[in-house]
């Protein structure tokens, strides 16, 4: 039954989400081509070119961030509507367990979050590659990469990069899970369920703030005391574990609360 549920989740979301991902990648291609056409690498830029560059960069950044925000909003609105409005009367009376119904939403949400994160990544990459601009940044990344390889070896470096990408993806997924979890926990309020979701979101944000604050500072103090122990690897691995923990915790709480306290009134 989970398979059928997931199939219908994709049917309900694919149009908007493919559009968002497509526009993200398309914007990257266009930005790259425009950059290339303007030839911004020449040592002397006219005022006009500088103006275009500034607005172009700002515009592109705004577009990308608003699109990823749009995808997050679309996904959590879909989660809310399909479970906690009258549509939930159908969702929760299908011959499937509550765990399956909620999981199908979360799984498809994760897949789309992954897709839009990748689309953002490709969008930015295309901008760089096609424009042939921003040579300094590319050189800087190359140099940094070489330095790390010198320090820890090629195999470790690739692992670090892999872990870094994983942390990046997991943290965007954990953000999405946090919205879903907040919406579900908000249902525990007997009235003002949306207010409940907002309160839950900020309370969780606060707790997470404390955790990462102590985490980072603890790490820094530890680094001062024995500077040998502080490694890039260690830092990334800790972040990775933290992201995994957040994902599991948000998912677990959402499923638990749905099973014990589902009340569509």
């Amino acid at each position, binding site marked *: 039954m989970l398979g059928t549920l997931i199939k219908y989740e994709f049917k309900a979301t694919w149009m908007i989400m493919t559009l968002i991902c497509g526009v993200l990648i398309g914007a990257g291609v266009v930005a790259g081509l425009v950059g290339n056409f303007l030839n911004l690498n020449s040592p002397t830029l006219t005022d006009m070119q500088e103006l275009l560059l500034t607005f172009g960069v700002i515009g592109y950044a705004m577009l990308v961030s608003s699109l990823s925000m749009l995808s997050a909003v679309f996904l959590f609105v879909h989660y809310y509507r399909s479970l906690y409005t*009258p549509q939930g009367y159908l969702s929760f009376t299908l011959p499937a367990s509550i765990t399956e119904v909620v999981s199908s939403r979360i799984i498809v949400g994760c897949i789309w979050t992954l897709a839009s994160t990748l689309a953002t990544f490709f969008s930015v990459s295309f901008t760089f590659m096609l424009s042939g601009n921003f040579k300094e940044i590319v050189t800087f990344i190359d140099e940094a990469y070489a330095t790390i390889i010198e320090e820890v070896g090629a195999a470790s470096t690739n692992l670090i990069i892999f872990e870094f990408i994983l942390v990046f993806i997991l943290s965007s997924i954990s953000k999405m899970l946090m919205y879903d979890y907040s919406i579900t926990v908000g249902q525990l309020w007997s*009235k003002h369920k949306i207010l409940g979701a907002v309160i839950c979101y900020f309370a969780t944000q606060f707790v997470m703030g404390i955790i990462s604050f102590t985490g980072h500072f603890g790490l820094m103090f530890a680094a001062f005391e024995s500077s040998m122990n502080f490694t890039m690897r260690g830092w990334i691995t800790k972040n990775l574990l933290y992201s995994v923990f957040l994902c599991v915790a948000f998912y677990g709480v959402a499923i638990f609360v749905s099973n014990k306290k589902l009340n569509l*009134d």
Partner: protein
Amino acid sequence: MNNLLEIQGLSKTYDRVQALTNVNLSIGPGHITGLLGPNGSGKTTLIKIICGLLQPTSGAVYVDGMPIGTESKKVISYLPDQTYLNDNMTVEATITMFRDFYADFDMNRAYNMLTNLGINPKFKLKTLSKGTKEKVQLILVMSRRAKLYILDEPIAGVDPAARDYILRTIIGNYDPSASILISTHLIADVERILDEAIFLQYGNVRLYQPIDTIRSETGKSVDELFREVYRC
């Protein structure tokens, strides 16, 4: 014979308001039972608990001997009092969806009813009137071969001509071993297809009797009795 619906000591409290108080009911197979009561008497709350959409504060519900869960949902065909379909879907897509989810769904029956009511399956739900949407939902629900049909205000939004068709569809389609629980305000319209009535008041079962017993004991129709019992 095993009861299709068994409710024992069911209570539900919302935010300190008692919506249901110690409700006990047993409905056997082969009945069309009216769940009657004024607004706020607990009809919808009771229905939602049976369908697993609300958690009871105390008490137990068994459907065909099973507690509320995945197995009970397989045998209940539920029509809520609101539109619960995604407005962006076509009528056809909702039918395919029901076929994919419910093993007991009968496609032919659904398409026959759509034809009889003159509903174009290619239309998107958002282009349909409120009454037509209700008809589509009722068609979906009645096209299943379920054991227990639970219809919350099934004819409230449809015109009298369609009402008659719908009520006949209900009697014509259900299997004699299945039961139907209908909650409604429109008692006069529905009365003749019922064989039992439950009167709810302030979250309690005030009366649970066969229709003809009510009629011969009181000399009144259930509709008249209802107006008398709940006179304001």
